[in-house]
């Protein structure tokens, strides 16, 4: 964020572009919704809990309702019977919305190259960040989230400068 310090009557002021200021505010305000179906969920719980403490990075509040969330983290294997449900949950989230596919199964089907498993949730909706690993370590998920924060920071929203 480009900041400029200028003289102002009665003191000094910082000047920046409104789009960058809004992006800076938005990137620390994501409300993630964990959609955990398999063992990657354990790693997500470790990320969420006190040792790794995802609240340090600005995603303090996990939301368990898609209508109060703007970041969905798909954690684990998605069966074809579950796919319509997941699709509907994604559609319930308000724009702008983001998706992290955590683990090999959510990214590409992983080792389950079979009839009953969706081969990556990007066959259902767009995915912003793929997290490799089986399961990924909490550090990997935190890195993925910081990458997503960069993406949110530089996204220009319509009508917001």
């Amino acid at each position, binding site marked *: 964020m480009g900041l400029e310090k200028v003289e102002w009557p009665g003191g000094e002021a910082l000047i920046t572009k409104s789009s960058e200021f809004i992006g800076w505010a938005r990137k620390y305000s994501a409300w993630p919704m964990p959609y955990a179906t398999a063992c990657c969920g354990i790693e997500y719980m470790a990320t969420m809990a006190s040792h790794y403490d995802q609240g340090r990075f600005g995603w303090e509040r996990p939301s368990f309702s898609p209508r109060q969330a703007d970041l969905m983290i798909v954690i684990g294997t998605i069966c*074809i*019977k579950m*796919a319509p449900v997941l699709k509907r949950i994604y559609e319930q989230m308000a724009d702008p919305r983001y998706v992290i596919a955590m683990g090999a199964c959510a990214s590409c089907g992983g080792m389950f190259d*079979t009839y*009953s498993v969706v081969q990556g949730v990007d066959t259902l909706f767009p995915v912003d960040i793929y997290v490799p690993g089986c399961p990924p370590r909490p550090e990997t998920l935190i890195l993925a989230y910081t990458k997503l924060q960069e993406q949110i920071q530089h996204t220009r929203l319509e009508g917001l400068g």
Partner: protein
Amino acid sequence: MSNVELKTKLLEDIKAQFGDKILSAKINYDMPQVEIDPEIHGEIHKWLKDHPEWQFNHFTDITGVDYLGKRDDSERFEVIVHLHSLSKNIRVRTKTRTGGENPEVQSLINVYIGSTWTEREVYDMYGIKFTDHPRMTRLLNPDDFEGHPLRKDFPVKGLHRGSFPKGVVINNKRREPQVTRQTRPKPADQMLPRTPVEQQRAPLREDGGDA
């Protein structure tokens, strides 16, 4: 009576009762195993459950096997039932062959209420229909799934590959339940005394139980 004698006596009893309807009877891997004629599939399990001595009152599992290419097409599938007698602490395995275009076996839900879902699973995976079952629909796969996955001629990656373009979700419309009050087994049926020992016991509730 030792364990082996007990199992041998069980096989003798079954053979004496059903005669030539028993295709083979032996102790296989420490477990009595009988291959039976499909006609007596319902009858033999009811007999095993109601028998005053054996009392096979615990239904363990029902599953299927596909012998594609190893057996004639008319007896391609095998339905395997495992039972456990809690009073004698022995188990028994029965095997029934079926096959053809529409493989069919008698349902066991009038004997063991716990077999409803497992029979639906066998139907889902092998396409073996259980006659007299009130709701012979898929259990694990989506309702509009094509094929039966555990058949040997089913491709491992499924039939929907290639017809599953990006952005399209396969149709998974939920059907209305076909079960009505008349066909569904009542909760009281599960509590009805079956074995002679159970019949001597006082009823669990006055009205026969309505869980």
